[in-house]
Structure formats: structure tokens, C-alpha cells
């Protein structure tokens, strides 16, 4: 196997004295969709934040595209063509949809802003209808679309999504997953997906990791994990 695009080795992270990550190893290869599933409080979002440098990892290393980014400040990481749609969407509520998208293109210096804007409106026609509306007035699904579109405006190689299906109607969640799969298939976009919706995430992903209590307990191909007894018992039965 060639060198992975993102390689996380033995990463630990703490909130004060509480260990949130206890030595995590995760690889994300170029062109892959990799998902990380786990229960509430397992440390999934913490891992994603740690990759983005807030909080910084106490031990271990995070290497992206051959470059160690373990100690790189957040905004510098964002300039390396890693985009993040953080937990809770975090769109700018008082700014219009189009301003939100323009903020996403800030990293690129607005080099291909117009073209990318058009592309986002093609992918998410709803956003075009809402273009001049304030972000805070959008519905949850639209806000999620906006958060993803904003992340895509920076033309990332690696897109990191934290629970894009959270709080969305199943149909909207499905749409969002379809868009992710499409972007991966047509443009070879690498996606690192943190999800609680294990069924959809594992069906979509090439590979998956299961996190329990700040540690990776299982990993494997997405469909394979879906068949595993322990995964089914913990994350799927009753959940679906």
C-alpha cells in the first residue's frame, strides 16, 4: 500500500486530567472514504478536533501528506487543503448563505471562487434558492448542506465531516451521504467521516474504525464491519 494521505499514530489527547484519546492509530488513504463510528463520548469528535490542532495531541503524531501537523496551529492546517465541517455545523448565522460560502473560499484567496460557487449550487440547488438568506434562518438540513459546501469551497483533498446526519430527517441524511459518495467517486475526494449513524456510514465507507472509550477496538472494510456480530450488537440492533 502506498503512503496514506493522513496517518495518525498513537495519538493521545486530554481535557485537563481526563484522557479523551488513549493512543489512537488511524490511516486514511488518498481517494478513500473512511468512517469512524462509536457511541456518545467515545472520543470521535475529539479525534477530529485533535487532527485540526484544537486540542493538540499530547503524544503521538499526525502526518498529513508527508508533513507532520501534530503541532501546527488550526488555521495553518486548514491552509493545507484539509477542510472540516465541524460538529454542530457552526455556520455563521447572521451572515448570508453566499457570505458563508465566500468565507470557505478565503483559504484559496478566492482564486476560483465564482466557478466553485456555481459548482456548490449545482450540488446543492437548495443553497442557490437560499443564497441571500441569513444562515441562521435555514433548516437543519440546509445548514448541514451549507456547512459541507463551505468546507468544499476550499477545494480540499481531505474532507472531514463530523456527524453530518445529526438531527436530520432520514431522507435528508441519505441525500447528504449520496453527495459524499458522488464527490468521492467523481473527483476522488478523500473523506474522513465521523458518524453515529453506523449503518449508513459503514455502507458508504471503504473502511471503518470503531472507537470505544478513546481507543480503536475494531477496524476493517466497511461492509465487513457491518456484518460483525459485536458491531451489530452495539451500534445497529435497535438503532435501525
Amino acid at each position, binding site marked *: 500500500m502506498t503512503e496514506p494521505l493522513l496517518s495518525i499514530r498513537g495519538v493521545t489527547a486530554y481535557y485537563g486530567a481526563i484522557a479523551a484519546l488513549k493512543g489512537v492509530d488511524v490511516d486514511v488513504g488518498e481517494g478513500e472514504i473512511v468512517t469512524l463510528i462509536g457511541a456518545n463520548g467515545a472520543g470521535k469528535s475529539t479525534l477530529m478536533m485533535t487532527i485540526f490542532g484544537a486540542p493538540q495531541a499530547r503524544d503521538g503524531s499526525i502526518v498529513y501528506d508527508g508533513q507532520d501537523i501534530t503541532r501546527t496551529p488550526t488555521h495553518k492546517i486548514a491552509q493545507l487543503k484539509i477542510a472540516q465541517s465541524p460538529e454542530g455545523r457552526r455556520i455563521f448565522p*447572521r*451572515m448570508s448563505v453566499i457570505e458563508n460560502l465566500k468565507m470557505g473560499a478565503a483559504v484559496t484567496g478566492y482564486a476560483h471562487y465564482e466557478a466553485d460557487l456555481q459548482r456548490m449550487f449545482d450540488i446543492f440547488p437548495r443553497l*442557490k434558492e437560499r443564497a441571500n438568506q441569513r444562515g441562521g434562518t435555514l433548516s437543519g438540513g440546509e445548514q448541514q448542506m451549507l456547512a459541507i459546501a463551505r468546507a468544499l469551497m*476550499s477545494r480540499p483533498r481531505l474532507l472531514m465531516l463530523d456527524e453530518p446526519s445529526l438531527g436530520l430527517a432520514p431522507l435528508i441524511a441519505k441525500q447528504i451521504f449520496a453527495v459524499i459518495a458522488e464527490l468521492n467517486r467523481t473527483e476522488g475526494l478523500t473523506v474522513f467521516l465521523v458518524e453515529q449513524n453506523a449503518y449508513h456510514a459503514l455502507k458508504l465507507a471503504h473502511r471503518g474504525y470503531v472507537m470505544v472509550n478513546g481507543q480503536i477496538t475494531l477496524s476493517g472494510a466497511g461492509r465487513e464491519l457491518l456484518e460483525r456480530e459485536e458491531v451489530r450488537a452495539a451500534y445497529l440492533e435497535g438503532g435501525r
Partner: protein
Amino acid sequence: MADPHAGAGAPSVFAVAFKDAAFAALVALGLAAPMLGLVTVQTQSGIELEQHWGKVAIAVAIVFAGRLLLNLTLWRPGRKKSLGYVPPKVEARLARFAKYLAPLAILGAVVMPMLPFTERYAIDLGILVLTYVMLGWGLNIVVGLAGLLDLGYVAFYAVGAYSYALLAQYFGLSFWVCLPLAGILAAFWGVILGFPVLRLRGDYLAIVTLAFGEIIRIVLLNWYWFTGGPNGISGIPRPSFFGLDFDRGDDGFAATFGLTYSPLHRIVFLYYLILALALLTNVVTIRLRRLPIGRAWEALREDEIACRSLGINTVNTKLTAFALGAMFAGFAGSFFATRQGFISPESFVFMESALILAIVVLGGMGSQFGVAVAAVVMIGGFELFREFSDYRMITFGLVMVLIMIWRPRGLVSTRSPSVFLKEKKAISGSLVQEGHG
């Protein structure tokens, strides 16, 4: 057919209103009896309790009658309630109206001193109001756009004023040289304040900036040999008109232009100077809002974490906001110094910071026009109440409470986006193509 239950079953409207008014009167009695009814007076033998039951009766009667009247009119049950907020349609119309209002207001400000009935007092008041408009616009960059609550803004105003006064005193530099220097120095202090507070937000930031404002004032007060301490600095040189002084001399402004000397010339000149400075602040702010840095400020106000994950350097973004806001305060400060001719730490107390912040908040954070209106209302209102200075602060507080009840997001709460999708234009364009032939 009349409702048979109207008289017997349900108590009549009047009875309900009467009962409510009586209850209100009882509450008023409870409050008024100790506060109005009993007054301690100093007599030869010590302190005596004087009784004023007449006053209490009047207060209770006013509350009772007023409450009854309101219950029967405005608060009458079943009366269609008017909406508590401005409906969006009216809001949109107002916004459209405001588009023309702003140029009109500027035009009004420009011609004001030329009008025949304008007195010196009006121009002086105009200078005062415009100074606060400028300060409001400057603080608006920090508070309204970048969302950094700054309670020590007056510190930069002081830095600007003292920069000019001291540079003029020690080096004999003219106003026009000192104006940019004062701006730069204030901006420098803005960055100095910015660094330690980078990690703070909200209440904590407010406290530190408040402390900073006080530090600057107290240093000015105690650094006696340098700043003159509480005596301040007097004899600050007046500005010249491209090297022409406003005096009686043969090379003065009046003589050069063949006018008869009038002390009003300088006042009018100062008026236009502060108008130009204020408009400069406004133009710079409006332009910056459309640039990446302006958008970054607003995004920072909305969500700092999201901002960082989009690759925005929040350190630089905050520091530029602080520096720019401080720079305009510095300009305003050196204008203040040259206008007064005398400055002392008295002029830079916390009350000034609070006033400027109130202007920004009441105007609607981030709205340029709202801030200008709020400055006119507050400072103009303050001047109107000069006669009754005892009631000034009460009125000030009352106006703030009322505005916050009616317009919780400030006078102008609509935020105009800096980028638009010009869809409408495209549609009309295609319609034109369809229609021709």
C-alpha cells in the same frame, strides 16, 4: 340576540379593570408609604420622622387612575394586540428608505453650517455630535463587526489626544503632522492591548479592556512631569488651514481670502474637519466590510472556532480590528485636543467609554447608519437636558431601557450582506431577450 351571560356570569370588563387597578394601588401604597410618606428630618433635638401622607395619597391616586385608564383602553381584554415588533415588510421598506436617508443625512450635515439661521451653538453641538459619531463608528469596527466587547475604548481617544498635545508641546509639531501620528500611536496601543486579550471573549474581555482604559487614565493622571497630571495640558495649538492660521493677522485665513475676520471661521472649519474625519471612518469601514478582512471580522463575531477551521488567522484578525478601531479613536482624540485647546484626564473617564458603547449598541451593532442616529439622539438629547442636569442620567437610562425593549437589536438591526447573488438581474436579462422581436 344579546348574550344572556354577559351581565350575570362573567364579571364585567369594568369590574375586572377596577379590581386590577385597586391591586396596583395597593402595591403603590406599600411602596410609597415608606418611601414618600416617612421622611427623616434633622432638628435641634436630633432626627425626627416627618409624615407626608398627602404625597402618598397623590401617588396612589395616580397609579390607580392610570392603571384603570389603561385597563379600559390599551389593555382592554379582547383588544387586538399590535405586534410587538416591526413587521418584516415595514422593515424592508425602512431599509430601502434608509438607503436614501444616509446620503440625505450627509448632505444635511454638509450644508448645515451654511444655512443662514444656523447659530454658533448649533455648529458647536454639531462638532460634538460628529465627534461621537466618529467614535461610535470606530468602536463599531471592534464591537459591531469583530464582536469584541471593548469597555476601554476611551483609552485610545486619550492616547490620540495626548499624542497630539505632547508632540505639539515638546516638538512643536503641527496638527496635520500629528494627526496621522496620533492615529498610528493609538493603533499601536490597540495592538498592545490586543495581545494579552487574544484568548478572552465576552465578559472577561470586557473586564480587561475596562481595566486597560482605567490604567491609561491613571497613568496620565500620575505621570506629573510628563503629562501635567490633573492640571492637564493647555495651550494646544489650533489647526491651520493649509498653513493659514485663523487669526486677525495679515497672513491669517480671513485676510488671505479677503474676508472680515470672524471667530466663526475656525468653528466652521473644525466642523468640516470632524465631518471629513467621521466620513473617512465610515467609508473605510464600509469598504473593509466588503474585503476579506471585513468578512473575517464578522465571521469571527459569529463563530471563532469555525473561523479558525476555515484557515482564518484569528490572531491577526482580532489585532487588525483592535488596531483600526483604536486608530480612528486616535484621530478623534487629536481632533478633540485641537478643538478644546486644553485636555486633562477628566475628559477620558469610563463614562465616556460607556457612552460610546451605548451609542454602538443602541444603534444596532454593525449598522453604520444606526450608530450615527444613536449618536445624534444620545448626544443631542444630552445637550437638550443640559438645563435639567440632575435628570440627565435618569433619562439616559430610561431611553436605553425603552430602546432595548422595543428594539432589542438596536435601532437598525438589519444587517446588509456584503455579497449578493445577483439572480434577479439575470432573470430580467433573459426576459428582455425573450421579449424582443
